[in-house]
C-alpha cells in the first residue's frame, strides 16, 4: 500500500497536505461503504431465502435467476414509493431520525481492521469508539418514535431506549474481559494479541462472555427473539410504523449494517479477526498462508450472520420483562464474576492467552 501512495505522490506533486489526506480518507470510506451496502442488500435476500428454506418454503424466486435480483428490485420499489408524513408530526425530527440511525451505523465501521493495516482509522481507543458510536444509534429509534406523533412508535421507542441502555452495560462488561486479556482497547492490537492458531483465540477463555456478547448483540440490533421494539404482533411495526418509502429503507439499512457490524465485532474480539485458524499447525498453517486475512474475517463473520437468521427462524419472541431480567439478573452478575475469573487468570498467567 505504501508504495502505491508513494507512486501517487510522485505522479501528482500538488496532491499533498490536508487536501490529500481528506481525499484519501474519502476514497477509503467509499471503498468501505459501497460494498457494505451491497452486503446489506444481499443479506436481506439471504435472510428471506434461509428462513424460507427453514420453514419449507422457497423464498423469493421471481426476479432474476433464483431471485438474485430481488434486493435490487426492492431497492427500486422503496425509492419510488411516496414518503408519507403523519399530520401534526414534527417534520424536522421525523426526517432527522433516519439520518441519526444510519450515520452511526456507517461511522462505526471506520475502526474495523479487515486485515493487517487495512482500516480507515487506527484509533488508539477504537473499542471505546465502537461503544460510544454504537450508543448514539439509539437516538434514531427514540426520535422516530417521538416525532411520529403516534402511539405504537412511541411504545416501541420506549421499549428500545430501556433495552439498549441496559444491554450496553452488559456489552461493556463483556468487552472489559477482552480488554483485560489483550491489554489494549485498540481493535488492531486485540486481533494481533490473538495471533497464532485457533487455540489462541479469546473465545476459549471467554466462552461465557462470547455467548453473552452475541445475545446482547441480538438485543442491541433489535433482532428476533428480542425484537420487541418492532414486535409485529404486539405494536404493529414499532418505531417505523409511520415511515414509508426511502425513510423506512434507511432504517432498514441501518439495522442490517449494525447486524453485520456486530458479527464482525464478535469475530474481531473472540475469533481472532483476520488470523487463519490453522496458524500454529505445522503443514496446514503454511498451506493456508496464501489466503488473505480479509477472506478469513469475512468467512468467520458470515457464520455469525447466518446465526442471526437461524436464531430468528428458531425462537419465539421474549416478553419484555423477561429480556430485562435476562440483562440485569442473569448476564450482569455473570459478567462481573467472569471479570474476577479473568483477573485471576491474567495474574497467574493460565493458558496461552496472556
Amino acid at each position, binding site marked *: 500500500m505504501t508504495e502505491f501512495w508513494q507512486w501517487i505522490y510522485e505522479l501528482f506533486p500538488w496532491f499533498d497536505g490536508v487536501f490529500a489526506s481528506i481525499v484519501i480518507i474519502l476514497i477509503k470510506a467509499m471503498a468501505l461503504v459501497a460494498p457494505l451496502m451491497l452486503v446489506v442488500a444481499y443479506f436481506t435476500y439471504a435472510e428471506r431465502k434461509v428462513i424460507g428454506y427453514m420453514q419449507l418454503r422457497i423464498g423469493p424466486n421471481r426476479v432474476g435467476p433464483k431471485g438474485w435480483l430481488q434486493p435490487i428490485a426492492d431497492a427500486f420499489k422503496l425509492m419510488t414509493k411516496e414518503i408519507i408524513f403523519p399530520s401534526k408530526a414534527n417534520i424536522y425530527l421525523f426526517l432527522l431520525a433516519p439520518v441519526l440511525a444510519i450515520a452511526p451505523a456507517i461511522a462505526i465501521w471506520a475502526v474495523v481492521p479487515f486485515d493487517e493495516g487495512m482500516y480507515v482509522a487506527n484509533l488508539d481507543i477504537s473499542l471505546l469508539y465502537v461503544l460510544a458510536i454504537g450508543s448514539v444509534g439509539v*437516538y434514531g429509534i427514540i426520535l422516530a418514535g417521538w416525532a411520529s406523533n403516534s402511539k405504537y412508535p412511541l411504545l416501541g421507542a420506549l421499549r428500545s431506549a430501556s433495552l439498549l441502555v441496559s444491554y450496553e452495560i452488559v456489552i461493556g462488561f463483556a468487552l472489559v474481559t477482552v480488554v483485560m486479556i489483550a491489554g489494549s482497547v485498540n481493535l488492531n492490537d486485540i486481533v494481533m494479541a490473538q495471533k497464532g492458531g485457533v487455540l489462541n483465540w479469546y473465545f476459549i477463555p471467554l466462552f461465557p462472555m462470547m455467548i453473552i456478547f452475541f445475545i446482547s448483540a441480538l438485543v442491541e440490533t433489535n433482532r428476533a427473539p428480542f425484537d420487541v421494539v418492532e414486535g409485529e404482533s404486539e405494536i404493529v411495526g414499532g418505531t417505523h410504523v409511520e415511515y414509508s418509502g426511502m425513510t423506512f429503507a434507511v432504517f432498514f439499512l441501518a439495522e442490517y449494517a449494525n447486524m453485520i457490524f456486530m458479527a464482525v465485532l464478535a469475530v474481531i474480539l473472540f475469533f481472532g479477526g483476520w488470523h487463519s485458524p490453522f496458524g500454529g499447525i505445522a503443514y496446514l498453517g503454511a498451506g493456508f498462508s496464501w489466503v488473505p486475512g480479509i477472506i478469513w474475517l469475512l468467512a468467520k463473520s458470515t457464520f455469525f450472520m447466518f446465526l442471526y437468521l437461524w436464531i430468528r427462524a428458531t425462537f419465539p419472541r421474549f416478553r419484555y420483562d423477561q429480556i430485562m*431480567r435476562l440483562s440485569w439478573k442473569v448476564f450482569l452478575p455473570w459478567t462481573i464474576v467472569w471479570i474476577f475469573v479473568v483477573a485471576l487468570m491474567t495474574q497467574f498467567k493460565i493458558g496461552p492467552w496472556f
Partner: protein
Amino acid sequence: MNSEQIIFYIFSFWFIASSLAMIFSRNAAKAVLFLILAFFSAASIWLLLEAEFLAITLILVYVGAVMVLFLFVIKMLNIDKSTLRAKFAGYLPLGLLVAAIIVTEMAMVLGYNQFGLGVMAAPARHGADYSNITVLALQLYTDYIYSFELAAVLLLIAIIAAITLVHRKEVNRKGQSISEQVKVQAKDRVRLVSITPKNKENK
C-alpha cells in the same frame, strides 16, 4: 490560520451556537437534541487537546446514556409550556441579574489573566505512540487509587439510596414469579385429550 485552528473555531462555533439554541428552544425534545450537539462539539474540542479518552467517555456516558434518559422522561411527561412561560416577564430582572453575576465571575476566574497563553503555555504535542488512556489509568490506579475508590463507593451509595427511595412498601405492585414461570412444564398447562369424532361421514 492552520487547519487545526479552523477546526477549533468550527467546533467552538457549534458549541456556543448549540448551547444558545438549547436555552432558547421552546420544545424540550429539541433542547435535548441541541444539548447533544453541544456535547459532541465539546468532545471534538477535547480531541484537539489530545484528551481522546475524555472525549469518548463524554459521548459514551452523557450522549449514550444520560441524554437517552432525558428524552425518555420528556416523552413520558406532558410539559405544559404556557405555565412555564407565564411568569417570564416577572422573573426577567432577577434572572438577568443572576446571569450578569455569573458571567462576571466566570470572566474573572476563567479570563485571559488566569488561563491566557502568557500564564499557561500551550502543552507540548505528544507523538503518535502516546496513549492517553494508559497514562490516565496509571494515574487513577496508583497515585489516586483512594480517591478513585471513594468516588466509586459514593456512587454505589447513591444508587442504593435511589433504589430504596423508589422501592417502598409493596402496595398494588403486580409482578411475575420468574422462577415459577421457568419451572413450568407442559403437562401443568396443557391437557391433551384424545377425542374420538362422533361424526364419521366427514372423513
